[in-house]
């Protein structure tokens, strides 16, 4: 079990309730029922306050929770007729980004997204969701195809960042991300991007030039990881919690900055507690934004996306 510090008091209450329930069932004690009800109310209250007042570091831990729903979970739960499409046609198939055609409530979509692993072995294969250049090139290949056939794109973002490695540099990590940014801007089909967990810097925004950008309630989207930021600013990567305070990267922060369009609510306790419910919410949000965009022509969609990002930035003009 992977238990976060702030989950402990809640889990303690829950196990206490479980214990009392067992006793109540064997003994049939009416008084215990009252006690159980009281504890359940208490638990609910505690959960509500805990999850509405998480500090930036606690948010980070939830966003990185290893049981959060990933792209493949979305595909399995929310889509039909999925065909995974592999490879960048140049170097290899990067398992840290997946993509393919599918239907969501009957509507064809191209889904692309980062893919983390569930266990060590899986994570070795998925490289912890950190793509190489060929991953971005695969995603762009699929998105361009979608634009040709006027198939809308759903992009799911969840990565610690683009992989920092020798091969990645040799094969042009920078160029792959840059080209993805430029080319996504020109695609003549609706694009909806959703940050589902960690929106790690350039490796995240490379899939994020969309008409609508949404974030899960407990996800983060940052210019740099708090560890990286602490390393540079304090010369000490272990001071990540302080950096997390300064970087203001929670979904709530980004919404207040008008950098995203909507926050998708998660079940109480986080998406990992009830992943199916969380995925249903994600699907609802994606379809609702698609419905807003479906009437626009290709050039209108490109213009809409341009103006969206054109407005971003805060400065004084003297």
């Amino acid at each position, binding site marked *: 079990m992977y238990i976060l510090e702030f989950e402990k008091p809640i889990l303690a209450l829950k196990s206490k309730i479980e214990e009392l329930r067992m006793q109540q069932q064997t003994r049939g004690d009416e008084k215990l029922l009252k006690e159980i009800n009281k504890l359940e109310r208490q638990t609910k209250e505690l959960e509500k306050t805990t999850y509405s007042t998480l500090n930036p570091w606690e948010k980070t831990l939830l966003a990185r929770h290893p049981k959060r729903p990933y792209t493949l979970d979305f595909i399995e739960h929310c889509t039909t007729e999925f065909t995974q499409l592999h490879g960048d046609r140049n170097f290899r198939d990067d398992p840290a980004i997946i993509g393919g055609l599918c239907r969501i409530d009957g509507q064809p979509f191209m889904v692309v997204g980062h893919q983390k692993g569930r266990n060590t072995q899986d994570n070795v294969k998925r490289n912890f969701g950190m793509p190489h250049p060929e991953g971005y090139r695969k995603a762009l290949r699929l998105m361009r195809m979608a634009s040709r056939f006027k198939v809308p794109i759903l992009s799911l973002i969840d990565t610690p960042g*683009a*992989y*920092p*490695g*020798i091969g*990645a*540099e*040799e*094969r*042009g*990590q*920078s*160029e792959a*991300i*840059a*080209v993805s*940014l*430029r*080319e996504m*801007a*020109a695609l003549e089909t609706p694009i909806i991007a959703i940050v589902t967990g960690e929106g790690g*810097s*350039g490796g995240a*925004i*490379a899939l*994020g*030039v969309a008409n609508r950008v949404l974030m899960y309630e407990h996800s983060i*989207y*940052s*210019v*740099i990881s708090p560890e*990286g*930021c602490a390393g*540079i*600013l*304090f010369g000490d990567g272990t001071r990540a919690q*302080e*950096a997390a305070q*300064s*970087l*203001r*990267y929670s979904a709530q*922060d*980004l919404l207040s*900055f008008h*950098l995203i369009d909507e926050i998708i609510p998660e079940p109480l306790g986080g998406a990992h507690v009830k992943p199916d419910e969380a995925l249903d919410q994600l699907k609802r949000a994606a379809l609702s934004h698609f419905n807003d965009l479906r009437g626009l022509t290709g050039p209108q969609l490109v213009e809409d*996306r*341009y103006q969206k*990002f*054109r407005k*971003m*930035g*805060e*400065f*004084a*003009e*003297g």
Partner: protein
Amino acid sequence: MTSWLTKLAPKLLSTDAKKNIPAGVWIKCPECGETLYSKDLDKNLKVCLLCNYHFRLTAEERIEQLFDENSFVEMDRGLLPIDPLKFVDSKKYKDRIKQTMAKTKLNESITSGVGKIKEREVAAAIFNFRYMGGSMGSVAGEKITRVIELALKRRIPLIIVSASGGARMQEGAFSLMQMAKTSAALSRLAQEGIPYISLMTDPTTGGVSASFAMLGDINMAEPGALIGFAGARVIQQTIKQNLPQGFQRSEFLKEHGQLDLILERKDLRDKLTELFGMLLPT
């Protein structure tokens, strides 16, 4: 030094230049260790006479070297950084900005405008590495986007000279979004057939290399420049092995197909004239 800004504030700039490389003194080349007379070094475009090491240039020096005399007109000088995150590390971002402005006499990490290279008008954005490591926040992103839009409107070629550690942490996600904003503007430029040459100088990394710097119709670099996505320290910590010799230097990138060419400083004006001349005949 020939921009209008020089005329406005000659004193500021001359003291600044002096602080950088005091006139009439000896400068040690960080590459070969040779001691160079600073006037000779200036005359040689700040390239080591012995080993060809390209010293980092300020934007003012670059403008002076690159453009016809008195031809560069700066734009958007009034764009100033603010502190949307109320960011604090060892000091407040607000104070950091004030101190940087006082120290460098610069408003931001980008100087943009239009100048002439052998009579041809060229739109340009040039990084000042001395200003917070040439980092890109909202102002840099906005200035670059505006100069791209200007190139588009006037149908003149564009050059961006990068020298930057990447996106500016202190402006958080606002900085990150500048990568998308500038790249989207370049998408329009490409569609309209306006040539863009990216010149990467030492260093060009992170969110700058992963957006407009790598998006030139022609990507060129000065010799020996550090160019890459991730910092060497981060890579080393991740892979736990030594990095190959010359890793992330211009020559390494060219060998791996990431650069069109490596160009010495003395050849820049001629080469830009040739290339722009073929891509966008006047």
